[in-house]
């Protein structure tokens, strides 16, 4: 039953997208984190998606392509620096280093992840109703 595979595919996509949403939530939560004593603030993280072959791979017809998160990469851009000598986290020159999270990028990322999540949930719902109807072949 190749239709049953749809749940694997859409399920892998849903879990990958929810991981992306998790990372976005963590980035947004740390948007205003300042650098600790070691001088390095929180760095924004991004998930990297990769096509994952599911089932017996190798045969061309078995091209069941799910998704998985291959790596979570850290943004290497320098964090924002603000001059605020009264801040307890300020360094010797009076600058406070914030995290390098860009809230606008994160919001866009969040909307994209949420749309993709919804798409895959709908794929699963459609596959489910088709399979249930297939089970009723011959019944009146």
């Amino acid at each position, binding site marked *: *039953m*190749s*239709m049953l*595979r*749809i749940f694997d*595919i*859409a399920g*892998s*996509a849903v879990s990958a*997208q929810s991981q*992306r949403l998790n990372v976005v939530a963590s980035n947004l939560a740390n948007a205003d984190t300042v650098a600790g004593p070691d001088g390095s603030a929180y760095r924004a993280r991004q998930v*990297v*998606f*990769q*096509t994952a072959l599911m089932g017996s791979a190798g*045969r*061309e*017809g*078995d*091209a*069941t*392509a*799910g*998704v998985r998160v291959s790596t979570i990469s850290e943004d290497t851009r320098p964090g924002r620096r603000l001059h605020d000598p009264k801040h307890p986290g300020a360094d010797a020159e009076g600058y406070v280093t914030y995290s390098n999270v860009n809230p606008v990028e994160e919001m866009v990322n969040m909307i*994209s*992840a949420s749309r*993709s999540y919804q*798409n*895959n949930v709908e*794929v699963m719902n*459609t*596959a489910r109703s*088709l399979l249930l*109807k*297939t089970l009723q*072949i*011959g019944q*009146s």
Partner: protein
Amino acid sequence: MIARLTESLDFHSQALMLRAERQRLIAGNIANADTPGYQARDFDFAAALRAATGRTDGIASSVMHAGGRLSPALRYAVPSQTSLDNNTVDMDRERSAFADNAVKYESTLRFINGSVRTMLDAMKSHNQA
């Protein structure tokens, strides 16, 4: 009579299997909508069905019965808009193809149900009705 019904049932079951195959393929495309470098794939349903049911004119090789499963020749989608990460999934196209394929899967199911019911009716004795 029965032979013709079986033939029709066979045709529709091939069509149903190909529809399920296509549904799976499109689900894979939708799942990979955000994967960098992923190339969307699809197959020519009409050609695959022609080949699967033996009503072929020289394209029999496009469908191979690999271990009892249909595996039609896959083609790569031509992107309507290029993207920076080389992903060629067009979500609008995939969504519409998915909905279209779901409706056609269901109609094939109804054809099968109709044939089954016809056969069941033919098998009933007249005083049973």
